[in-house]
């Protein structure tokens, strides 16, 4: 009996414990469950599902007003339009209703065009899933929140099927309307957001106006002229702003990398310039000429939240699969401003002028002071490189510091003044030996030689810059060890750059490591007394996310870091130059070396225009490709006159053949004696034309006739360039065949 009782108690206790455990388990799950249950959000009451279609313009309300524009907003669709007070011209965030009937696109693209938000997502829980394209209208989305803010409105788009909440702010200020996606407010459901476009059809226009065009930041800027696209070309433009990120997959397009976060569209008597002002490092620019996607020409930033990368599963990095990161890219906000232009000044030159104003007002750029009546002449000097030798690498001396002094004085005697010399490959073992730059190699003169060279350069009224590549390291100098300090992609694979220097490639340095190294070197530059540094290879021109645990940095952090390196260098040394610079480096960088002057030859693009040069002239100096490495010697010389670019040459004292087998320096004509005559002749000619406009902004650029281009500066000087084989007769002036002339006053009669 007693035994029985005991067993009963034991059973009861066991059951009790089990029950308690169960209750605990339930309770434990409960707090997790509760928010999950409320994740589909309580506010089902707010919006009613939208009917796909154009917004009803009668229902728009006035949401903002400035001196010259009115912003009208639609509570039902979240769309908006901007109206010019003076002319009544309208920029819409949705397709032009007048031409909507003619739209031929079908399926999801039709609603993509109508929708204020379109996005791509993926089901991350399945490794087999494909990316899906959707939009707010297709999913019969709702507006959960609509409120007025100062100068505009805020709206929260909910996509019920895919489960995303996208908050967007639209604001009108002065002469622009700003569209901002608030990253912190984005909610994801079961799926992962890859990228989104907000108001992709802003300002979109079908090819009604034959003189209209899209402006792309491809190369120096390029135009996609409106045409009917009768050949059914489906190509679109989609490129990451500020170039590829090695941590992720990059589509091979072989296009020039985007250096400026701008784009534009002109049609009829109105146009806009788009400038991505925040979060642009995480953007791609998407542009579709008419006929590729719908009948309109449209261009829009595509904000990136996740990018696929290659997860390798073997050691060589060849086997593996593509997948997406779990974490979203976070930027405080992603905003694009649409600067609205109308009337006469609406072309790409006016857009560039507006961009220049933006750079001055918002980015703190200042007008250059012309210190010298003569234009600067840039000469890159190759100090040394390596080539394969019998037992070890042979050191090829290109230009010692003494020879460089002589070279500079020879240039001076040939009538070239205001010379900025840029010394390359001065570190130990020369050009192909990357990393740990100091001290300079003794064989080319060492630190003392550079010091003397700097003084000699200044004595002649010039400058000396040292070229520095902090992004590669194959020497191990400075304590660099690629396993610790190398750039790694999201899969943890060390990144290398394939060059001629070895079988494996050269390890790319972690950005944070390179910043430390660059800042530590500043004191050494100061001791040498050089006037500044030309950054090549990475700082100021390339942004790579780093997943090296010791130096982890996001793309935005790398961008910030580069800016701080450039700023500190400017403070310490004076002049910062960057090779093929991204425009984010601009406030500090005062010289952009070898800026792109051509486009990427996409078949839908019609021509290259000097957008970057128009924006820069008078704010920073720039050069095009080296004079002795031009593809077409004469043609590109003329182009430098058209683009207001200063001459640049890459020289060495050694005969050109010396570098035939060099690992990195592949330049096939380096001997300055071969070039001095033509360089001095071209310098003098350019000096006559550009000397008086060094600190002047470009106000106008265009064609006077086929093959005749005119560039007009603030002070009225117009440089007319004739690319044709026949002389050009202008209004009261002549330009000989394949030549240019600078005309004072209102000489150029432009059409």
């Amino acid at each position, binding site marked *: 009996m007693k035994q029985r009782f005991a067993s009963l108690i034991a059973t009861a206790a066991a059951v009790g414990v089990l029950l308690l455990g169960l209750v605990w388990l339930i309770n434990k799950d409960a707090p997790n469950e509760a928010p999950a249950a409320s994740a589909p959000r309580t506010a089902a009451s707010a919006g009613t599902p939208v009917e796909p279609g154009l917004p009803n313009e009668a229902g728009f309300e006035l949401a903002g007003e400035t001196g010259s524009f009115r912003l009208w907003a639609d509570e039902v669709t979240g769309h908006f339009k901007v109206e010019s007070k003076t002319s009544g011209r309208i920029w819409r965030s949705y397709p032009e209703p007048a031409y909507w009937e003619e739209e031929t696109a079908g399926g999801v693209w039709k609603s993509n065009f109508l929708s204020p938000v379109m996005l791509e997502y993926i089901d991350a829980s399945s490794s087999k899933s494909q990316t899906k394209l959707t939009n707010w209208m297709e999913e019969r989305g709702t507006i959960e929140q609509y409120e007025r803010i100062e100068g505009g409105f805020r709206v929260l788009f909910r996509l019920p099927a895919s489960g995303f909440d996208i908050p967007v702010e639209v604001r009108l200020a002065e002469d622009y309307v700003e569209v901002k996606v608030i990253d912190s407010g984005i909610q994801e459901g079961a799926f992962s957001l890859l990228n989104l476009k907000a108001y992709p059809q802003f300002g979109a226009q079908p090819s009604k106006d034959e003189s209209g065009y899209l402006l792309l930041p491809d*190369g120096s800027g390029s135009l996609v002229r409106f045409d009917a696209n*009768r*050949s*059914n*070309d489906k*190509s679109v433009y989609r490129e990451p702003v500020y170039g*590829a990120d090695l941590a992720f997959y990059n*589509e*091979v*397009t*072989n*296009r*020039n*990398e985007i250096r400026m976060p701008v784009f534009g569209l002109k049609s009829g008597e109105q146009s806009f310039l788009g400038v991505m002002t925040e979060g642009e490092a995480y953007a791609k620019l998407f542009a579709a000429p008419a006929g590729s996607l719908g009948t309109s020409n449209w261009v829009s930033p595509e904000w990136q939240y996740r990018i696929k990368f290659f997860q*390798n*599963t*073997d*050691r*060589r990095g060849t*086997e*593996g699969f593509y997948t997406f990161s779990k974490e979203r890219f976070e930027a405080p906000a992603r905003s694009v401003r649409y600067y609205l232009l109308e009337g006469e000044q609406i072309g790409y030159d006016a857009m560039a002028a507006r961009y220049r104003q933006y750079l001055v007002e918002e980015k703190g750029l200042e007008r250059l002071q012309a210190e010298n009546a003569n234009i600067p002449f840039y000469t890159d000097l190759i100090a040394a490189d390596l*080539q*394969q*030798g*019998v*037992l070890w690498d042979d050191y090829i001396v290109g230009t010692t510091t003494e020879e460089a002094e002589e070279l500079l004085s020879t240039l001076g005697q040939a009538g070239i003044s205001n010379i900025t010399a840029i010394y390359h490959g001065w570190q130990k073992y020369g050009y192909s030996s990357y990393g740990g730059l100091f001290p300079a190699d003794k064989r080319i003169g060492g630190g003392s030689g550079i010091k003397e060279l700097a003084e000699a350069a200044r004595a002649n009224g010039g400058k000396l810059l040292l070229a520095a590549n902090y992004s590669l390291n194959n020497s191990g100098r400075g304590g660099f060890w690629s396993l610790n300090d190398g750039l790694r992609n999201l899969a943890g694979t060390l990144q290398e*750059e*394939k*060059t*001629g*220097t070895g*079988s494996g*490639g050269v390890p790319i340095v972690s950005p944070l490591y390179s910043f430390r190294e660059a800042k530590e070197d500043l004191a050494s530059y100061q001791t040498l007394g050089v006037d500044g540094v030309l950054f090549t290879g990475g700082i100021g021109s390339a942004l790579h996310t780093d997943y090296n645990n010791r130096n982890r940095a996001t793309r935005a952090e790398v961008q910030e870091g580069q800016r701080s390196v450039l700023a500190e260098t400017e403070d310490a040394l004076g002049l910062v130059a960057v090779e093929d610079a991204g425009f984010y480096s601009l406030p500090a960088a005062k010289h952009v070396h*070898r800026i*792109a*002057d*051509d486009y*990427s*030859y*996409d*078949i*839908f693009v019609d021509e290259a225009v000097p957008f970057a040069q128009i924006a820069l002239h008078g704010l920073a100096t720039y050069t*095009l490709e080296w004079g*002795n490495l031009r*593809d*077409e*010697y*004469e*043609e590109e010389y003329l182009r430098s006159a058209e683009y207001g670019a200063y001459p640049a040459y890459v020289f060495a004292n050694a005969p*050109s*053949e010396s570098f*035939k*087998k060099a*690992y990195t320096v*592949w330049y*096939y*004509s*380096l001997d300055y004696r*071969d*070039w001095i005559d033509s360089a001095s002749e071209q310098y003098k000619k350019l000096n006559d034309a550009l000397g008086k406009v060094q600190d002047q902004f470009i106000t106008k650029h265009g064609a006077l006739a086929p093959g005749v281009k005119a560039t007009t500066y603030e002070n009225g000087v117009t440089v007319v360039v004739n690319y044709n084989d026949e002389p050009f007769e202008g209004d009261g002036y002549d330009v000989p065949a394949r030549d240019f002339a600078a005309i004072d006053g209102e000489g150029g009669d432009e059409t």
Partner: protein
Amino acid sequence: MIRRLALRIASLAIVSIIAIVSANPEQAWADVPYVTYYKDNYNQQYRIQTAYMPAAALGRELFIDDPDNPGQPKHSPLNQPQDLFIDANDDMYIADTGNNRIVHLDAAGRLLRVLEAEDKPLNRPQGVYVHDNGDIYIADTGNNRVLRLNKDGELLKTFVRPESKLIPESFKFDPVKLVVDKRGFLYIATLGGYQGLLQLDPEGEFQGFFGANKTSASFIDSVKRLLYTREMYEREISKLPGSITSVDKDGDGFVYTVTKEVSAGQLKKLNIAGLDQLAGKGEFADTMSDGRYGEFIRQPGVYESEAPQLNDLTVDKDGNITVIDTRLNVVSQYDGNGNLLFFWGGAAGDTTTKLGLVKMPTAIASDSSNQLYILDSENNVVQKYALSEFGKLVHEANGLTQDGRYEESEPLWEEVYRQNAYYAPAVLGLAKAAYKRGDYEEARRLFGDAGWARGYSDSFWQNRLLWFQNNFGFFMNIIIGLLAAGIILRLAARRFGWRLRPRRGEGGRRRSRELGKQLAHALHIARHPLDGFYGIRHEGKGGPAAATIVLALALAAYGFMRARTNFVFNPSVVTEPGIGNALIQFTVIWLGFVVANYLTSSLSQGEGRFRDVYAASAYAMLPFVAVGVPLTVLSGALTLNEASIYYFLQYGLYGWAALLLFWQIQGVQNFSVGEAAKNVLLTVLTLFVIAILIFIAFSLTSELAGFIYSIYQEVAIR
């Protein structure tokens, strides 16, 4: 011959090492979408200026009258077009194969008319040719016929398969490309027509086959021929000569052909008799130009295994030949003698279509101003290219050089050279001009820069001759003086009883004397090899220390030979200046031989200890020091004319070393000749086995490591 072999080996070697050029594609920021290269006769690739700039993309917007809706234009793009012909007025004729028509465009790419056959529709026409008199010939491939239309498109004649007992039964008349000569004779390339071009007279009568390719017979083939029955051998279809892919002709009556599936002679320039004018006549005939055409672009770190596959060619007004490659997508241009001028190519992304980039080139043509047109059958467009400033300059200069007007070409080549110091044709052009002028020293320097052995050798020969002539008196004086001195000395010695040979010195410390003796033993071996090697084993002569010194000397001498032999005899000086690998190979093979030899001989009752084998094998390397060093020095003073002397001495060197090794085995192990021969075989066999074992061990370990790593990764990540 030997030189060519050496070059071939050298070129194989450089495939495995990295290309010199570090063309970083990301850095091309202001350029056309492709990169132009030149490849010198050592297969080294140099980046050069763009020779042809993209000019236009034509033929994208063709509109015909809509058949369903008359009066309305209808977009009618090209569809897999296969051939392009440009007539004297620069009008374009395109064989629009997929649309079964021929389209006629003007020079700006506007559609002028569409040509179709009157009697029955064209069926996948793949070739079109327009005669100087305006007659249009169409290879109507699908209908097995060739049509001749007059310039208004009226049918004049139909050519079908000719009747002749000279044509084999199996011959199929599928005409793809054709040209017509002045007389109206047709040269037709047919699908699979390995017999060559089918030659028809204006009446359609068979005239013969023209310009057939040869079969390539390899070693394997001769073995097969030996073993297979006749039926089996004949069934080997691959043994047929390659069938001609495309044909073109120039104003001088030469007929040009390209052939796809051959490893040499892809491009031919045939005279009226069907003889190839390019074979063996190129500028570099004595070096690399072994009749292979079609270039490939070497990227750093990428090994290109695919052979070029030429699809079409064009000859411009200056006789320069441009060929296109469907497989590698490279355009290569040669001058009229088959010398490479430039080649270029570039990859578009899958999603981009670019001006100047062709995805699938099917035909190429040139117009009256030497602009190039390439037909792209994937993008259905004609890409047009115009000569750049650099390209024009090169054409002009090269034209003069080819005509033998070297002096006139010199200023032009100087300008080219100024713009590009690595461009070998410019250096060669200048060198030839200097040679013609009689400035042999300059010519020698320039030929040396360009790496052209023949020219270098010839100018050196001239220089040497001059030098000898100038210094003849001086040399004669020295020789006479020396002879006289010798005679006087001898007389004096006899007179005064001097000893001319010094007595051996007896001083020095014992150890160094010992080493000296051991080193001197090397000389003894040179004179009495068998005896000397026997002495190493049984008389304690020669020791490891001295042997190591001899070995080190031999190694150094070998390195010296590799690095300093005149490039005329040793192209690897140019292609692979490093000797590290060569030294390691030498050491590894030598060590392997020592180990293997010791192992095998100790098994077959050899008497040698390991130290003896080591020492003796080291002494056997003596010829490298004794012959190799002087030979290397001498090579600098030899020209190709004396190549036989050089090669005789070089073979002597290796032969002597091999003999010494053999005697080494005999002497050290105390073997008879037969035993030694057997032992050599066994040694070589063992060497192979060791090598294979090491290779297997290495590869298995790394495979295993990779396997474990990937399993870990798969588990950890997925």
